[in-house]
């Protein structure tokens, strides 16, 4: 059974955009984790995760967002999540991600969101 998944990263302007395509589960989440780690290792802490083509995500994928967000915020960056469909958004909502992450409709609005100052410490 194929588990169609692909991931691509690109640096645009002063942002890294990671595009997820397909299903992020316990099998594919390590690829997502590697991609985020590489972006951070390359010195980019403003990260947009484009979920427009994401068809499914389980807690293994959500854990990747949680595992890196503190690190990039300490470096004055952030991870913005964009393009989620209503169906794929469900696990994010159930776990309460909306109070701890910015959700944006698309990559452009996610980039704009970086100009806003958010004191995430208040959320913790």
């Amino acid at each position, binding site marked *: *059974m*194929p*588990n169609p998944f692909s991931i691509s990263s690109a640096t645009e302007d002063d942002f890294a955009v990671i595009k997820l395509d397909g*299903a992020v*589960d*316990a*099998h594919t989440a390590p690829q997502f984790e590697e991609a985020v780690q590489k972006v951070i290792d390359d010195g980019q802490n403003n990260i947009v995760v484009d979920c427009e083509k994401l068809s*499914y995500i*389980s*807690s*293994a994928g*959500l*854990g990747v967002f*949680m*595992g890196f*967000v*503190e*690190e990039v915020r300490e470096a004055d960056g952030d991870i913005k999540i964009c393009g989620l469909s209503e*169906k794929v958004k*469900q*696990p994010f909502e*159930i*776990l*309460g*991600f909306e109070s*701890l992450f910015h959700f944006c409709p698309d990559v452009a609005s996610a980039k704009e969101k970086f100009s806003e100052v958010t004191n995430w410490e208040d*959320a*913790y």
Partner: protein
Amino acid sequence: METVDKKFTLQVPSSTENLALIREFVSSAAKQAGFDEKEVGRLELAVDEACANVIEHAYGQDVSKEVIVRARLDENEFSIDIEDTGKGFDPASVNQEELEQLINKRKTGGLGMRLMKTLMDEVRYEIEPGKKNALHMSKRLKKD
């Protein structure tokens, strides 16, 4: 009217590679139960989380083991049973800290069980160390 229970069984090697197949199996069975697309998605997620725990924790990625998923549909509910003979655990010991605290401590554990408990009407573990671990989950059917 007399109704007939429907039973579906899937048996696959214990590998995360098979999670997509497990989701497809659950999706097909849940559609027969008449759940809408959103509810089918929720059931797929709950079973995926449960099986990922078995594959990664109970069997420690040992692909010689097998994961068995049994779905059952009767007139009242759609139920899923997942059994394994791997390493057991104490469900009460699973991290239930708030998301904020988990992020602060850079921990991600316990999310799967939290999702399962939210997505399903019933989640029940029976752990017999060294013998058998069983997880029973169910979702009531909506009556018109």
